[in-house]
């Protein structure tokens, strides 16, 4: 396998324009002869399916939810970045590009990020034209807010539901095409296999989640927009259905998986309340502007927070990072909280939480002011925990909420399997080792609305792929493989439920490959994961049949893939013997506890190639070369 990133030549700022001209076109009358299979209907998938159908391609679109409108992009709260410079505060394409590269700790591909910053402008224009009700100022102009990692105000938002509104915009565009007959929509349908014919992606095998029927779909290209793999940790802010199956199946069919160890932890989530917990809920980081983070000084101090005197409290962020205090960067505050809890000083059920205390701010500014700033967050906290945060401190704990790694793609968003395109969180391309707030929505829509529609045509016109042959041997084999897998899962008839395996796996990767990773821990995880996987395949309990709606079976299939994928993630984390962004190796840190990169040895994308069930994945490196920026130690002082 050779990684060819296909980055266009020429100056950074002109690459995309030049490339757009160099891309070959498909005659409008010929477009309807090509069928594209789009898997996933989040921001990336829905926008791609709609845009491709508008161009005239035949599109089939698949999602596991009962409606494309429910994809997890809907849960994004904060906003979407665009270098509009409406605030006259010095924003520009170059600045957005620079912030994103720096935020990604210099582990993202420069040309992709620049293109992302360029098309960010069109995204906002298009979304407004679709009727997305962005927040406005009294003069009728679009409002902006500022977000972490940037010194300009460039984030567009729709209350705390920006993801929802952008997704509904894309969903409506998609629905319009479904109504026009240009897109065939397959909800409650899960992809189980990628079909590769003569080296090109030619179709997928899916399971109808209502009838259990396994069938094939043939197409001229396959687009995966299937999101991230945060649920490998069992508990994350992802929807409970989010999974790695589609991407992992593609990996097993030859698509390289890049940087799987890059995961992002968000510091202000509502902590776990017990073993029953099925997912974590994120609260806006803005809370840290007025809240003080602390834990008791004494281990196992069970007193109520207001019974603990000032002198018995440890305001650990203020103590450890006097200049940043409670506003220390995401990864640093997350790790500090974990350390405090690991020392046995955590609060709340299971000791997995730290206080975020507003009493000083309430004393200083009055409850009314705090209510004005954070009422919706305090309400949300109360709904979930039943506690009034005006009276007693909130409890928070970090949680996984985004994965920067994903299938490797070239500049055209095509994976190492020709004809297989990967968009949004499912690919690896734009966020490097850490994603900035309000950038995920931007990337998903950029890929779907403004990149893929250009580059997919080039694949059709330039590569002239052969017509897909549904029912050919490759399809029959892939279908048989999917069926066998389902039968195998049902035949185990063991004692342990999928959830208990998933929970154990999650706890293991959270401990060993979560906020802080070490060689010792990762090696231990690499020992334990195969053992857990073996137990899974010999002691799994699921009921029901494969020929009906069977949620236990669906979950088992996904966890089976997580059990394999987790190993790849830990292997990547072990191999990347440096710290960068969200990947923090305890062996490599600065005196302030910041991630310490090793640019000499690790300034590359790590792309893993599957080598068979028993083979060790093969590492390919795509060197990262920076023309437009100077690599520096990331610092937000």
């Amino acid at each position, binding site marked *: 396998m050779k990684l060819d990133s296909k980055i266009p030549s020429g100056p950074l700022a002109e690459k995309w324009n030049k490339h757009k001209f160099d891309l070959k076109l498909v005659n409008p009358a010929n477009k309807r002869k090509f069928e594209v299979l789009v898997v996933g209907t989040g921001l990336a998938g829905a926008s791609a399916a709609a845009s491709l159908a508008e161009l005239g391609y035949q599109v089939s679109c698949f999602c596991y939810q*009962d409606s494309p409108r429910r994809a997890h992009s809907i849960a994004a709260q904060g906003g979407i970045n665009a270098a509009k410079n409406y605030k006259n505060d010095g924003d520009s394409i170059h600045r957005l590009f620079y912030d994103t590269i720096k935020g990604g700790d210099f582990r993202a591909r420069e040309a992709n990020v620049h293109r992302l910053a360029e098309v960010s402008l069109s995204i906002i224009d298009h*979304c407004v034209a679709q009727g997305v009700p962005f927040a406005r100022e009294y003069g*009728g102009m679009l409002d902006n807010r500022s977000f972490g990692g940037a010194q300009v105000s460039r984030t567009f938002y729709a*209350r705390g539901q920006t993801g*929802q509104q952008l997704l509904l915009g894309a969903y409506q565009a998609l629905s319009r095409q479904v109504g026009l007959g240009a897109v065939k929509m397959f909800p409650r349908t899960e992809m189980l296999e990628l079909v590769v014919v003569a080296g090109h992606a030619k179709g997928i095998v899916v399971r109808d989640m*209502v009838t259990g029927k396994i069938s094939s779909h043939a197409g001229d290209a396959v687009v995966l927009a299937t999101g991230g793999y945060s649920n490998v940790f069992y508990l994350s802010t992802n929807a409970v259905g989010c999974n790695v199956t589609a991407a992992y199946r593609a990996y097993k069919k030859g698509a390289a998986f890049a940087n799987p160890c890059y995961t992002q932890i968000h510091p202000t989530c509502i902590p776990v309340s017990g073993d029953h917990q099925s997912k974590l809920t994120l609260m806006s980081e803005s809370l840290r502007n007025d809240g003080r983070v602390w834990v008791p000084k004494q281990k196992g101090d069970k007193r109520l927070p207001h019974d603990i005197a000032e002198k018995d409290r440890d305001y650990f962020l203020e103590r450890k990072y006097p200049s940043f205090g409670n506003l220390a960067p995401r990864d640093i505050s997350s790790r500090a909280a974990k350390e405090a809890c690991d020392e046995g000083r955590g609060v709340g059920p299971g000791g997995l939480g730290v206080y975020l205390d507003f009493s000083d701010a309430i004393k200083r500014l009055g409850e009314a002011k705090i209510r004005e700033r954070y009422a919706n967050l305090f309400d949300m906290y109360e709904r979930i925990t039943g506690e009034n945060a005006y009276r007693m401190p909130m409890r928070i704990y970090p949680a996984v909420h985004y994965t920067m790694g994903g299938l490797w793609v070239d500049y055209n968003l095509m994976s190492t399997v020709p004809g297989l395109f990967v968009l949004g969180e499912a690919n690896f391309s734009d966020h490097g080792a850490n994603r900035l707030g309000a950038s995920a929505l931007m990337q998903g829509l950029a890929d779907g609305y403004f990149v893929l529609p250009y580059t997919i045509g080039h694949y059709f016109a330039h590569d002239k792929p052969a017509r897909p042959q549904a029912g050919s041997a490759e399809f029959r084999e892939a279908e048989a493989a999917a069926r066998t897998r389902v039968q195998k899962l049902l035949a185990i008839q063991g004692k342990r439920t999928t959830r208990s395996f998933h929970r154990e796996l999650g706890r293991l990767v959270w401990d060993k490959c979560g906020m802080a990773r070490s060689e010792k821990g990762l090696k231990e995880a690499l020992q334990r994961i195969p053992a857990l996987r073996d137990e899974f395949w010999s002691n799994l309990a699921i009921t029901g049949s494969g020929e009906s*709606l069977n949620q236990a079976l669906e979950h088992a299939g996904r966890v089976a893939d997580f059990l394999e994928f987790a190993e790849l993630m830990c292997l990547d984390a072990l191999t990347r013997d440096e710290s960068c962004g969200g990947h923090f190796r305890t062996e490599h840190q600065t005196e302030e506890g910041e991630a310490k990169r090793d640019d000499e040895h690790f300034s590359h994308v790590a792309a893993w190639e599957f080598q068979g069930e028993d083979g060790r994945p093969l590492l390919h490196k795509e060197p990262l070369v920076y023309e437009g920026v100077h690599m520096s130690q990331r610092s937000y002082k």
Partner: protein
Amino acid sequence: MKLTLKVWRQKDGDSRGEFATYQANDINPDMSFLEMLDEVNESLLARGEEPIAFDSDCREGICGACSMVINGLPHGGRKATTACQLHMRLFEDGETVTVEPWRARAFPVVRDLIVDRSGFDRIIQAGGFVSVSTGGAQDANVIPIPKPDAELAMDAAQCIGCGACVAACKNASAMLFVAAKVSHLAILPQGRVEKNRRVLRMVEAMDSEGFGNCTVTGSCEAVCPKEISLNFITRLNQEYAVALLKSTGQSAR
């Protein structure tokens, strides 16, 4: 705490369903209602019985997947709350709780508590969009939109399409859902251009799905997790009346 659960079990759309009774023990008051069901399912699996099927995904009240009637009220009837955010501390120890699927001809049961809400998708496909294709949009700030209009549009646009309005309405009417989308797009200048065509087509699609009619009882508004206002139904009535008058004598298509 402990609960007695009466849960609707139905193998598939063609089978007859019935209530089954389960004991849920060791309920932690911090569990959400769905996490409580997860635990019940774990114990069912351990006994070799098929778990209760129900829709859920984001579990933070925004995707609109969860859909169950708890003690006669969609999502349990707590103000502005979906079933996934309904916590067990709101229930009494020892209580008997009845759990049913959404009941409507337009939402046929798929299995247990899962219903088919694709009718909502077809309503949107009929006209719940702005007919703009990707590319070529003018600058986002060219058309100023008064802040109150943007806020009102957002109030309507918040709908999560869960179908609680239909489930609560004694007529299984989808008016609140349709009204929310019609209003969201008609309030904004971008959507105003095709508002007559949109409202006629969406109402036609709504009728053909077999939803009932609005009798202004207000139950939809009361159970809506996003607190979508009944006023939007008034707006829909108005929009449709105007569109009807304008389309007189000319085909709507």
